[in-house]
């Protein structure tokens, strides 16, 4: 009897704990969502004045905000692509070939990840100034590629750890040349690792503030724009855009998690 009661209490306690964790995680997000529909017009836009979708309409009049969002997307897509290609080739190369100083090179890879972003930001700015590249879109992309590449390499390398390279030999043995083998065998088998790396790179690029702050010149990214406007309280149109981004993310997550993609694959066969 006693034991059962204790058991029940324990279950209740863990349910409560779980609820608290989720509350902690999702409360801030829900505040944004709710506030994006707040009818208030006076700074700092915090007191609830009733429901409205006006901010979503106004959002599309705020061209500089939209512009910054566009910049962020372009930078994220381009730098993700570049970082993914470079990182994948790097990881495969470092997996396949043995050479002197490989261990050192492996270790060095962690440095861009562990040094404070502010240091990386200053270093990049110094370099760009030294070789005189005008700060803007280009430098932003270069900077983002720089800090994304190690993450892609780590992800692909994790996948390579369980990789049996004899399947590549089997492919060569069956008459496929090296390029064909790479696209038929290596790439598809590593795909989950590559996709994971790319996703990570994409999210890192989208919400980077510190490094972007150093190298952006006149170009504004979405996080920088938000930082700027925060001085006058977070405007509800920023909340509106954030909510839309959140919505997009959720759709993306649901899509990848569900069997939708798998069904598509079956249809193709």
């Amino acid at each position, binding site marked *: 009897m006693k034991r059962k009661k204790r058991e029940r209490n324990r279950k209740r306690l863990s349910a409560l704990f779980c609820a608290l964790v989720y509350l902690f995680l999702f409360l801030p997000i829900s505040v944004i969502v709710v506030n994006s529909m707040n009818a208030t017009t006076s700074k700092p836009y915090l007191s609830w004045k009733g429901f409205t979708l006006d901010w979503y309409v106004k959002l599309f009049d705020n061209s500089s905000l939209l512009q910054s969002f566009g910049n962020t997307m372009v930078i994220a897509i381009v730098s993700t692509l570049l970082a993914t290609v470079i990182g994948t080739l790097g990881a495969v190369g470092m997996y396949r070939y043995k050479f002197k100083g490989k261990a050192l090179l492996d270790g060095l890879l962690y440095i861009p990840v562990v040094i404070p972003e502010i240091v990386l930001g200053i270093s990049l700015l110094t370099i760009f100034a030294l070789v005189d590249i005008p700060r803007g879109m280009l430098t932003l992309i270069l900077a983002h590629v720089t800090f994304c590449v190690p993450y892609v390499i780590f992800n692909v390398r994790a996948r390579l750890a369980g990789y*049996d390279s*004899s*399947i590549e*030999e*089997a*492919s*060569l*043995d*069956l*008459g*496929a*040349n*090296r390029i*064909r083998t790479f696209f*038929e*065998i290596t790439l*598809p*088998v590593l795909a989950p690792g590559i996709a994971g790396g790319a996703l990570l790179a994409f999210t890192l690029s989208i919400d980077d503030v510190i490094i972007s702050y150093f190298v952006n010149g006149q170009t504004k990214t979405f996080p920088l724009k938000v930082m700027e406007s925060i001085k006058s309280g977070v405007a509800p149109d920023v909340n509106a855009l954030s909510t839309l981004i959140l919505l997009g993310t959720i759709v993306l997550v649901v899509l990848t998690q569900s069997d939708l993609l798998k069904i598509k694959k079956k249809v193709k066969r």
Partner: protein
Amino acid sequence: MSSIVQLEGVNKYFGKNHVVKDLNLSVEEGEFLTLLGSSGCGKTTTLRMIAGFEEPTSGSILVEGQAVEEKEPFERNVNTVFQSYALFPHKTIYDNIAYGLKMKKVPRPEIAQRVKEIMALVQLTGFEERYPSQLSGGQKQRVAIARALINRPRVLLLDEPLGALDLKLRKQMQLELKRLQRKLNITFIYVTHDQEEALTMSDRIAVMHDGILDQLGTPEEIYEQPQTKFVATFIGETNIFEGNIKELAMGRVAVRIENGVIRGCGYGFSRNEYITVSVRPEKMRFSPVPVKGFQLEAQVKDYVYVGSVVKCIAVLQNGMEIKMDRLAGEELPEPGSIIHPWWEEKDAVLLHNPENQVLEMIDSMPLV
């Protein structure tokens, strides 16, 4: 018949590790040649050099009369069944098997037809849509065989292709492989640990030992006339005696061993040479009374019935066990009784003992 694969003085080092040592081997067209040897003796490495995945440190390899050093694996008319299967995890069984033909741009209907045939042959019909992870070890192995065989290569390299199969399927696949090999006239270079498999399937067997080719010959030659102690002990069961030659006349040899004297016949030996004598259990005889020329005494210890054969074990004074095989039903000495092992002189195989040459020299030096 002409040789389709030739290895000439091939050496392979991995760093300082000398794995294949001065290998000379000529494989005839249409032949079933088996590389037999214990684990780690360099069998896989040899296959990999022929397939093009490893470069010989020195020496040359010829396939169809042409040196292949410069050729990539995909340019060699050789296919491999890998020891670890190496199936493509992201492709279905159908796509795995069709891969080679697809790379050769064989028309689709023909691919479909040939895949269907080969899948029936390896008894995998119905598994087309599965992925390798959904198969058992034995099924994977059959996919690996089908995937290589479907290309009808001139030479097929098989690295322990039946290792994961149960006995029944293994026997069945042995026959099937042998039949296929005959029918398609493909040269097989076959690697195995299993001496029985090697003896039943091969036209010739190459016994390897520590990277050295110990002996190359037909199964019968390998079994009846082993040329080294390793070959004698590795292939089939045997009784090994070692000792110095005491008498030597007209090829008839008496050898003094620790517990007595034994006999055999062979040429090219010298008096006092320290040699190894190998006698197969089925050639061994136990006599209740001493036999002329032999001085050997043992006590019968045990019988083991293995189907149609009875294995009889006797023990010498020094504890060494002597094995004798008899057909079940034959009369046998009582356990515990004293017997005298002997054999026909021609049934003993006499072997030089290269490792002991130094010892021998020391032994034969006059005492000062």
